[in-house]
């Protein structure tokens, strides 16, 4: 991205920071590229096929939706272990509401169901956040309790029964049949993204120049912007490259991917451009300083956990819709993938440092590993082993990285 978050630029003197580039993001992009090439060779060209990449984007959506909020939680020196269970619980409630409570043929059913899930997730998150902020119980414990409570809750809703026959309109959120937006809307989104990147980069550059503020060298800016443009083009090509069976009709972007893009864009804006985002990082850097600056740090903590809950509810909608049924085990262990993605993406467990684009790449890296292992025929036990190892390595990198940093 064209500008690092205020805090994601920790090393001062090196080449990257002189060029105002985020070394960690570049490192991640390269890592993902290497993983992709290796899997592609091992799978004899299947991994980088349009079809597989399209599926990969859908598989990334659920973690990708949640990870931006997890970045905020970890930046504030907390953690949320309950999101997999919140995902399962809200998913189960949405399935029941969608199939059994709201009239199945009502046009508003899908949206009302989604609203129920998001509100429920938000309330659960705010409740846990209030325990952390106002009662000073460590987030680790509160959300560990939540992990058990809401997983149990997911079972109790239907005594363990799976709830099927969700409405087609709700299943759209999962990206299944009829769950893509088609070629032309996909191009429109691509065009909006392109226009945004170009206008934003050029106007920022000119404005800083006009105000006599330091800028990165022109050629670096051109390369960065150029690469972003290429990336967006490639992404749109993949989204539109996957055709409906036996036709030449492009499916276009799957709805869950669209949801992921929208939430990420919103969260990036919140972090970069709002007071709220600024205060989250200030709190992570020095909680007492944030309080002394007049920030209501307790409310801030509660709201961040509430956002985490809302996004867990959103992921619950995506996963439940994708399965076409509510089950009490949906989302099990999702918290670990999400935490791993955030940490791989450069969010520091010691707080105050994190970037949403980085976490997003972390999510992509994790889902690439899983998808590749599946393609090569490794079962889910191996996937867990690899996920665990990647998490440990990511934290190790964070520890090593922080060693060179005064605190």
């Amino acid at each position, binding site marked *: 991205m064209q500008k690092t978050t*205020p*805090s994601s*630029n*920790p090393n*001062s003197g090196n080449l990257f920071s002189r060029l*105002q580039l985020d070394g960690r993001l570049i490192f991640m992009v390269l890592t993902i590229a290497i993983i992709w090439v290796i899997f592609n060779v091992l799978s004899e060209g299947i991994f980088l096929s349009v079809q597989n990449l399209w599926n990969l984007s859908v598989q990334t959506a659920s973690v990708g939706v949640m990870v931006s909020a997890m970045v905020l939680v970890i930046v504030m020196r907390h953690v949320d272990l309950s999101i997999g269970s919140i995902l399962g619980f809200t998913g189960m409630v949405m399935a029941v509401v969608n199939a059994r409570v709201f009239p199945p043929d009502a046009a508003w059913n899908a949206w009302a169901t989604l609203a129920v899930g998001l509100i429920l997730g938000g309330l659960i998150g705010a409740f846990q956040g209030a325990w952390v902020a106002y009662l000073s119980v460590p987030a680790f414990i509160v959300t560990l309790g939540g992990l058990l409570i809401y997983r149990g809750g997911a079972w109790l809703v239907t005594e363990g029964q799976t709830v099927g026959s969700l409405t087609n309109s709700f299943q759209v959120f999962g990206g299944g049949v009829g769950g893509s937006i088609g070629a032309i809307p996909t191009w429109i989104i691509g065009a909006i993204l392109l226009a945004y990147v170009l206008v934003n980069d050029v106007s920022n550059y000119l*404005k*800083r120049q006009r*105000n006599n*503020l*330091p800028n990165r060298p022109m050629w670096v800016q051109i390369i960065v912007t150029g690469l972003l443009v290429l990336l967006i083009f490639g992404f749109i090509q993949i989204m539109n490259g996957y055709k409906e069976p036996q036709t030449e009709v492009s499916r276009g972007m799957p709805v869950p991917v669209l949801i992921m893009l929208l939430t990420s864009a919103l969260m990036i*804006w919140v972090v*970069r*451009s*709002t*007071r709220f985002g*600024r*205060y989250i*990082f*200030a*709190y*992570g*850097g*020095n909680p*007492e*300083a*944030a*309080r*002394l*600056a*007049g*920030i209501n740090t307790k409310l801030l903590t509660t709201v961040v956990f509430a956002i985490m809950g809302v996004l867990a509810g959103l992921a619950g909608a995506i996963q439940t819709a994708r399965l076409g049924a509510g089950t009490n085990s949906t989302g099990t262990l999702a918290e670990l993938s999400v935490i791993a993605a955030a940490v791989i993406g450069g969010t520091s467990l010691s707080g*105050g*440092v994190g970037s949403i684009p980085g976490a997003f790449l972390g999510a992509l890296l994790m889902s690439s590993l899983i998808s590749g292992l599946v393609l090569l025929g490794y079962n889910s036990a191996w996937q867990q082993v690899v996920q665990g190892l990647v998490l440990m390595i990511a934290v190790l990198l964070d520890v090593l990285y922080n060693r060179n*940093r*005064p*605190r």
Partner: protein
Amino acid sequence: MQPLVEMRDISKSFGGVRSLDGVSIDLQPGEVVGLLGHNGAGKSTLIKVLSGAYSADSGQIFLEGKEVKITSPRSSQQHGIETIYQNLALADNLDVAANIFLGREILKNGSLNEDQMEIEAKKVLDRLKVNIPNLKLPVYNFSGGQRQCIAISRAIYFKARVLIMDEPTAALGPQETAQVNELIRNLKAEGVGIFLISHDMHDVFNLCDRVTVMKNGKVVGSCKTKDVTEDEVLEMIIAGKKPRVLRDQA
């Protein structure tokens, strides 16, 4: 004359420790009051009650004769009280401008106006003649003195009526200290009332109109600097012994 600030009979305990025990103190407009005392005397605790960081167990605070309730750092700021804390209270991971404007960011159409804040930060730092090459770096990159200047800039940017400085020059070199002392004189001339906590007798006698000495959470006494000698003030700090002027009054 009506005091700008009057704190009356303030007490504050932490657990069993009575850090402030019926402390009363006042400040006139355009006056610099030195707050002195040994380590742990309660100086920082007292000013944190005024800055809203702590709430007192008992006692009253008056601003220009009107009683006010200072319940949070925000309400203290809203009364025109700015504070430079002993530990600086900077968010190390944020850049210079973000720290100076923390809690009071400049907005444009509802979102942060980073460029404007950077420009304003540059201006206020220039006023202090500090050399900070890159305002976009997180502040942990800077030296103790530079960080102290950032904390001072934050307090003076927002045109205070009352300025609290808790050992503002502790980490500064001679040139920067002179700069800050100059700044204190300028603000005083503008009618700002200043509480200055310092262990440097020389600076205290140079800058302060009055000194108030604390010991073990109580006020030993308060007197004009021109009425006392450095030795007498040292005796107040160390032995809690009142100087001659105060004994004569009694």
